[in-house]
């Protein structure tokens, strides 16, 4: 195997599993250490630079970082990264003085259509550079799906307002309550660039017998949630069936429980284990006494005297073919009937661009989706960019933020008359953390604590008030204890071949047997030959140059605890613990240079 090229920023980036998994590449261990030190404001700002909405995401993020967390591989449960983000937001101090200065107007005008997370990120990145940003939205307030689809008991309005308004206060011109019905007319206003961040606004319908006859009691999930969010709907029937197994379904059922629903069932086609909803959202729903039934495919809406009385379902079981593809096969049992007063349909959502003319040089593909470049986020129209759910279909907030940052870079390059592919590399530093003989600037004692649970509000009280936040968040002590569970994966083990005397001290002391000195071989063979075979191929092997004995050092990154004992026991400082900071380039870096 060839020696590992640690000058490639992506090598160590991948070792920081949480940051690697995060679409916005937020430096997670860095802000968790700040939380442990009580530096909440600093921790908030690290987040704000990277993901724009720490308070919102600290409550609602899909947290791709958590399943990636090394702790899952070492013990069982990941660090509660998402809820620690909320700790930073809850306990931070004033940040007004830390906001970027707004440069003098540069004469360029950018339109953002939709006021959701993607558009707001574009505005956040471009306004400080002197751009005149105009944000359009059909709703009366900014926030997009964060406001219309996420219930207030998960995301208090005050938190949402604060983080959205902070961006709008950067001198953004807003055109709210404005339904954009023609992209051409927006382009006609002479904008230098237009960003489309309109999300995936159309909930999927369910065309089965009886659908049209029960229209009064059949609701599309996201439309119904929006109607609740804006106060147009405040009741629901006593018995409610929610169709679908994603996070929208979880929000629907829990909202129904708060609007008068007493018997609320989520009924899903797939097996329970394959439901799309995040496990914690399913848990929260079940804690609130929502019943979840799996392997039921809806057959018909049953009416009596023209009114919905229930739904019949066919029972199915999953059958997997050789390639692992699943089919749902009827069990042959009699269809089952569940009575209900209202049906909430949350079986997916899709993009919808009736307002974009098809003859303005903006191409659509065979699925009627705009053709968008994966790197620049530009459509086939030179001045129109897409991001968030509008670009490649429904994802989540953190993906929308990541798209927004990249689109902002492209727009800045376009307005500067530069090539859109001339993008800056990430900003990377690698600095030794050695402070003394065996003293490091980070806490290298590994906490053996189990994941701490976030306290919840009293169930009866929470169910009685749709605006009452269910999760209370960690207090400072719990936040500290949970922060200490972080393994500091960004403090990298860096090996310098020339210093090594092959004394084996690091091999002997490593608590997780990840260091080896063996003869080199092709990677598959090395993976088998090391002390504990490296079976997880998504985790890299760190291979040194040839040592004097002809052997090489091979470290399996998989379960390294970053405890630094290899470096403490190394007599020649061939091992060092170095902090790896990786920052994605943003529009402001593009402007100022690296």
């Amino acid at each position: 195997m060839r020696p590992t090229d640690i000058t490639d920023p992506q090598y160590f980036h991948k070792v920081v599993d949480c940051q690697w998994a995060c679409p916005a590449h937020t430096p997670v261990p860095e802000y968790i250490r700040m939380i442990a030190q009580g530096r909440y404001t600093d921790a908030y700002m690290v987040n704000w630079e990277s993901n724009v909405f720490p308070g919102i995401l600290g409550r609602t993020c899909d947290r791709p970082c958590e399943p990636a967390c090394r702790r899952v591989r070492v013990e069982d449960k990941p660090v509660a990264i998402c809820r620690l983000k909320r700790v930073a937001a809850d306990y931070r101090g004033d940040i007004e003085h830390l906001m970027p200065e707004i440069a003098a107007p540069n004469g360029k005008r950018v339109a953002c259509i939709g006021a959701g997370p993607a558009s707001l990120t574009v505005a956040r990145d471009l306004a400080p550079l002197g751009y005149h940003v105009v944000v359009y939205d059909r709703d009366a307030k900014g926030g997009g799906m964060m406001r219309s689809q996420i219930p207030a008991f998960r995301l208090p309005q005050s938190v949402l307002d604060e983080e959205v308004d902070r961006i709008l206060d950067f001198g953004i011109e807003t055109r709210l309550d404005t339904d954009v019905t023609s992209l051409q007319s927006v382009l006609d206003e002479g904008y230098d660039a237009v960003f489309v961040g309109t999300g995936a606004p159309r909930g999927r319908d369910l065309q089965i017998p009886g659908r049209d006859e029960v229209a009064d009691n059949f609701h599309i999930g996201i439309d119904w949630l929006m109607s609740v969010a804006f106060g147009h709907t405040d009741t629901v029937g006593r018995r409610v069936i929610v169709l679908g197994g994603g996070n929208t379904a979880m929000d629907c059922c829990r909202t129904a429980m708060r609007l008068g629903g007493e018997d609320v069932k989520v009924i899903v086609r797939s097996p329970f284990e394959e439901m799309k909803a995040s496990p914690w959202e399913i848990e929260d729903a079940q804690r609130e006494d929502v019943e979840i039934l799996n392997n039921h495919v809806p057959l018909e809406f049953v009416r009596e005297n023209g009114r919905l009385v229930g739904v019949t379902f066919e029972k199915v079981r999953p059958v997997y073919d050789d390639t692992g593809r699943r089919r749902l096969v009827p069990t042959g049992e009699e269809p089952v009937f569940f009575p209900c007063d209202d049906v909430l349909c949350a079986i997916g959502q899709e993009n919808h661009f009736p307002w974009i003319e098809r003859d303005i040089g903006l191409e659509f593909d065979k699925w009627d989706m705009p053709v968008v470049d994966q790197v620049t986020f530009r459509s086939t129209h030179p001045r129109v960019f897409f991001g968030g759910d509008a670009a490649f279909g429904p994802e989540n907030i953190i993906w929308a933020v990541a798209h927004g940052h990249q689109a902002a870079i492209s727009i800045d390059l376009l307005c500067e008359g530069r090539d859109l592919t001339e993008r800056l590399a990430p900003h990377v530093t690698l600095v030794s953390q050695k402070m003394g003989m065996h003293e490091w600037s980070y806490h290298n004692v590994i906490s053996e604590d189990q994941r701490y649970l976030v306290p919840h509000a009293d169930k009866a009280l929470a169910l009685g008030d749709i605006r009452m936040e269910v999760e209370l968040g960690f207090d400072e002590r719990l936040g500290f204890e949970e922060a200490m569970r972080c393994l500091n994966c960004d403090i990298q083990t860096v090996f310098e071949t020339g210093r090594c005397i092959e004394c084996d001290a690091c091999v002997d002391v490593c608590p997780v047997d990840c260091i080896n000195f063996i003869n080199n071989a092709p990677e598959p063979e090395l993976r088998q030959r090391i002390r504990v075979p490296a079976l997880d191929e998504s985790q890299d092997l760190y291979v040194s140059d040839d040592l004097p004995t002809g052997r090489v050092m091979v470290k399996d990154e998989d379960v390294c605890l970053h405890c630094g004992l290899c470096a403490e026991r190394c007599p020649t400082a061939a091992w060092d613990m170095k902090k790896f900071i990786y920052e994605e380039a943003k529009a402001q870096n593009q402007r100022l240079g690296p």
Partner: protein
Amino acid sequence: MSFVSKPRFHHPRLPRNALGLTRRDYEGAMSTLCAGCGHDSVSAAIIEACFELDLPAHRLAKLSGIGCSSKTPTYFLSKSHGFNSVHGRMASVATGANLANRDLTYVGVSGDGDTASIGLGQFAHAVRRQVDMLYVVENNGTYGLTKGQFSATNDRVSVGRKGQRNAFEAIDLAVMAIQLGASFVARGFSGDKDQLVPLIKAALTHRGFAFIDVISPCVTFNNHFGSTKSFEFVRDHEHSVLATDYVPYHETITASYAEGEVIDVTLHNQCRLRLRKLDSDYDHGDPVGAVRYIMDRQAQGEVVTGLLYLDTGDDDLREKLELTSRPLNSLDEDALRPSPEVLESINASLR
């Protein structure tokens, strides 16, 4: 030394032995020796050997004297019995313990000072008495604990850290052990666990006195250019004569070798040692030839390692003394008190 304790988390796929234990279960406290000390590697090799032999730690006793090496029993097998004796007196304590309870496995750890200087007399008699134990000397040629004076095993040609010359001849403990009648003598190197771990396994299984002289560099006082006990020197001048593979009795040997290259030796517990000759001139069964060979190579500046001498036929101390097969500490009054008839016959013989 590290101030943090070793995290208890271990690799989730760490192998388990017949007792259901992992290698980590055989560890001791965190070492307080200098970072990179060869002794820590010897501790790791003992841990590995005990793990692989499926030894129950509570049936093993660790004995030591005074010195850096004698501190190390704290750093392995924390569930075992232990006795940290007076300087140079480990061999006597081991002899006594051995007689009192023959059911335990005895591991003595000593250093070149503890064995070749203050404890030389103790060592010599433990060897010639064939005390059934593993006696490990962690040999670094220096008194590390008192800041790096030459020890009695430091080669005459080996200079000090600041260039000081060494005026005295070195004691070769392996040669001495062969001359004094040890039945298992080997030399290892802390930087070569592939060689050391099988040697320790074989020595732990051997009945009689098993001696391993482990060159274990002192990174602080004796790992410089000009030292013959440094990592670099030993790697460059090591000459291994016999590779030892320990074969558990239930395992069949699959590797094939040309005739004459391999000798299988059956130990008293029915396990086998497979000895592979790395040097066809060497005969591990001839004590006189072995001593001559080691000294010849030594004169050429080479360090002979591997299994140097093996005799599975000699009795150990308890057999020589014709002791009862029960541990002495388990003999109660009934067993120890002679019957009236026996007492009478003894008295009669003395009248």
